[in-house]
């Protein structure tokens, strides 16, 4: 069964930077693995969340899905058609749109909003749907007054700039929007407005969304399914509600436990996840999470865990997922 966008066993290597590092790693090939054997499927009209620490490869995956960086291995398909060359990705860029991580910086400071809104049409050689009214129609679609088209990006608030980038992403009427940190740095009320806008567009236009974020509370409320990435590999995925209620992967559990609590009565005295995500140049052997995993055993350092479909719609990559599943049966590890 194919979804709207399928990522099938995708890996992505890059040349490791600088000769200096090669000296540190004698004998190793000067490549570094950014994404490794990653599979993911986004359904029609689905909101999928992608979470993981900084450096886990979320933005790289988004860029690979748009053909902005080449994958080394595996298969990408959009609407069931495999994407092989440049020409295929040109089509994808009309059917799928990427909202960049820093929405405001991705707008040019010297061009008025209206001119930037119609760029996707110009770049792809598509005639303007509503002629001169195109920018106004686009702004209204995201709840902005059409007069904002005459402003420069620095004259917009953070929330308005974010809406403009949503409007721009919607220009070519895509079926899928990949939103990289769509609400980072926004106030909670503005964040809520942007998320409500996206869920509204999903129900009105049947759009699919891939929402990439550090903010687990956002994922919990707006997505149908969630995928957890660690050091370029999928740790776990499944229906959002279930993953939050019963996370099976130790990394997912640590992420959920790390969320700061506004209620001082729920303070956590201990630290859920110590240390930093390892460098892609020093990828740990076996399970890449074993250097930080609270329940790691000797086997974890030598043997890579397999992707394990623990129920028909939940995947976990951990040697001991079956054990945690039995332990958490009926229990509630969510917050």
């Amino acid at each position, binding site marked *: 069964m194919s979804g709207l966008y399928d990522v099938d066993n995708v890996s992505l290597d890059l040349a490791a930077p600088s000769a200096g590092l090669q000296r540190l790693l004698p004998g190793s090939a000067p490549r570094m693995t950014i994404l490794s054997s990653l599979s993911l499927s986004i359904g029609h009209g689905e909101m999928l969340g992608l979470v993981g*620490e*900084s450096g886990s490869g979320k933005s790289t995956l988004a860029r690979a899905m748009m053909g902005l960086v080449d994958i080394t291995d595996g298969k990408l398909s959009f609407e069931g058609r495999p994407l092989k060359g440049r020409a295929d990705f040109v089509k994808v860029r009309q059917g799928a749109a990427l909202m960049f991580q820093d929405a405001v910086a991705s707008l040019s400071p010297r061009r008025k909003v209206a001119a930037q809104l119609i760029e996707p049409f110009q770049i792809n050689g598509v005639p303007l749907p509503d002629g001169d009214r195109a920018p106004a129609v686009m702004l209204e679609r995201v709840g902005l007054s059409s007069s904002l088209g005459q402003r420069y990006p620095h004259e917009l*608030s*953070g929330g308005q700039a974010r809406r403009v980038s949503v409007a721009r992403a919607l220009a070519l009427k895509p079926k899928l929007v990949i939103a990289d940190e769509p609400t980072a*740095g926004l*106030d*909670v*009320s*503005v*964040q*809520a*407005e942007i*998320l*409500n806008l996206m*869920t509204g567009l999903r129900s009105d236009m049947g759009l699919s969304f891939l929402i990439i974020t*550090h*903010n*687990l*509370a*956002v994922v*919990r*409320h*707006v997505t149908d399914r969630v995928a957890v990435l660690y050091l370029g590999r999928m740790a776990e995925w499944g229906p*959002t*509600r279930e993953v939050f209620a019963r996370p099976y992967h130790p990394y997912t559990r*640590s*992420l959920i436990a*790390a*969320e*700061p*609590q*506004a*209620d*001082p*009565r*729920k*303070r*956590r005295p201990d*630290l*859920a*996840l*110590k240390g*930093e995500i390892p460098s892609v140049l020093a990828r740990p052997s076996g399970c890449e999470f074993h250097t930080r995993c609270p329940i790691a055993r000797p086997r974890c350092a030598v043997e890579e865990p397999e992707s394990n479909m623990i129920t028909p719609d939940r995947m976990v990559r951990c040697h001991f997922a079956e054990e945690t599943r039995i332990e958490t049966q009926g229990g509630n590890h969510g917050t």
Partner: protein
Amino acid sequence: MSEALLKVDDLSISYASEEGPVQALRHATLEARAGEAIGIVGESGCGKSTLASALITLLAGNARVTSGSVQFGGRDILSVSEEEKRKLRGRHIAMIFQDPMTSFNPVLTIGEQLVDFQDQREGLSKPEKRQQAALMLKRVGISDPVRCLDRHVHELSGGMRQRAAIAAALLMAPQVLVADEPTTALDVTMEAQIIHLLRELRRDYNGAVVIVTHHLGVVGELCDRVYVMYAGEVVEEGSTDDVYHNPRHPYTQALIACDPANLHEQTPVLPTIPGRLPDLVNPPRGCSFAARCPRVHERCRSEGPDYVEVGPRHRARCHEARS
């Protein structure tokens, strides 16, 4: 109960602009006691950083104090000489910024700078200062402090940079530590680690900590008391527990309600606060929240509310705070 170390009394600050003075801070009152961590929260543009910059006497060039004072060590530190201010900043009041890059010079090593930051410390040789610096880096959880001393700031990860910035701030054992959005640039696990570190450091640090943030989670985890700001005013203050569990100002209530982290049931439509902050060049005559308040009535538009005491050390600037 301990004495207030730092006291902000009726402080108002305006910025010169083409449209006229921006009244970024209006009649703010606040105190930080020894051993206490206070939080300052509110949405972007409400004046949090303006207040923080006054606490460390580092106002922008176009800023003007139009009323009030910041009392520290028995005097108004906003009216002392530049020389005195610089001494205060090095030694008694220190700051951590959102972007730790701003705390360091990119061309010097971390070690060189941590030694320089101790220039007001007498009777220590340079190697001893370096030793102090390494000890402090270790205290903030940097596992290989000696190597870190020889690095430049861009060679450190985001989390390490913020740790190094905290080390720099604590080096002179300041009595007041002000942190402006210390975790905003970090991901969720780094944020948790920095929160944990600040909490650990508080244990054997008897100074006052002031945390400025737009994230209620940071306040909940770290602060004993919280000041909620809106449009340049402190609209509610109280213990973190009282303010979270019994918020009396409609703005505080709305702020808590629209953070998805506080919603227990999954909901596709999140609550928002419709409307925008008022124009601070011409702030409204009555209550500054009136245009967005669900409980607004006639009196609110004509008469600005005073503080209403709603409990011990808990008050809100709203006509309806008691109902």
